[in-house]
């Protein structure tokens, strides 16, 4: 191999290496930019759950997976429990602190937008996955569904944080 050829080869190798290194970063960017950056994290309930979270957050609705919202959303929800979507759901200071920490530590890790909605159903990923093309609008009128907050009406494993397609069963 001539010196010239060797140089070209090296330059090519450097370029290829650089591309290789840059690729995952570019993909990660695309991923975090999905749904305009309002993307949920891993929705499965964390393996290490929190007893207070399970107990308190499932009294009136399912204990929504922390990964469905970004940390800032959970901070806001937990700071406003005395006016929680039309009901007083306040906790004592100690329980509030413990549950807030659990939610924040397990919040969505794919949320890059500077937004922090209070409702899971306001997130861009939610709207996209539940729009008119995905779901017949009639489904929402079914009294068994009642509200978009009622995940378990169709997502049979919602309590576990499993929202996979194969576990969807629309009520009749």
């Amino acid at each position, binding site marked *: 191999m001539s010196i010239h050829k060797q140089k070209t080869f090296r330059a090519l190798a450097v370029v290829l290496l650089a591309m290789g290194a840059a690729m995952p970063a570019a993909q990660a960017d695309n991923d975090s930019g999905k749904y305009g950056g309002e993307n949920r994290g891993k929705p499965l309930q964390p393996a290490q759950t929190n*007893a207070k979270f399970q107990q308190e957050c499932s009294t*009136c609705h399912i204990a929504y997976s922390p990964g469905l919202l970004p940390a800032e959303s959970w901070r806001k929800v937990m700071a406003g429990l*005395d006016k929680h979507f039309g009901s*007083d759901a*306040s906790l004592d200071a100690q329980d509030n602190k413990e549950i807030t920490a659990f939610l924040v530590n397990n919040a969505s890790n794919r949320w890059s937008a500077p937004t922090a909605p209070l409702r899971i159903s306001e997130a861009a990923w939610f709207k996209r996955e539940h729009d008119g093309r995905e779901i017949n609008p009639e489904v929402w009128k079914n009294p068994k569904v009642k509200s978009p*907050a009622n995940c378990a009406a169709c997502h049979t494993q919602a309590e576990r944080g499993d929202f996979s397609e194969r576990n969807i069963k629309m009520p009749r």
Partner: protein
Amino acid sequence: MFRELHVLGLALATVAGLMAQPAFAETSNEILASIQKEAAGTPGLQEFSSAHGESFFKVKHANEWSCASCHTENPAAPGKHAKTGKAIQPLAPSANAERFTNPKKVAKWFKRNCNDVLNRICTPQEKGDVLAYLLTVKK
């Protein structure tokens, strides 16, 4: 060695679990007595009345819900949350022995539900009247 540690760990976890249980399980009459204590000395205090408690339970106050909106007109029957539809176990101790045995839970729900129904917290008189009523409800 490992097994011993394991057993020790289990034992510790069990003790911790027991300690996490409501530390002051009481009877509904003890809860009533503690409301009595809370009420003592408030101006215009009357003896707790189950009749007052019953009407307080069934009428609407500041908001669109009464206690009965979710707990039904019969507190010995299961209820249903007026908004979410969530099932609610009977409230009367005669029908549900767990009710009014955990002071922390009692305080939590009086605060929440009084805010939802009256837009304010309840007075000790009101809480005493309601519990006096609930204790008279037969299964």
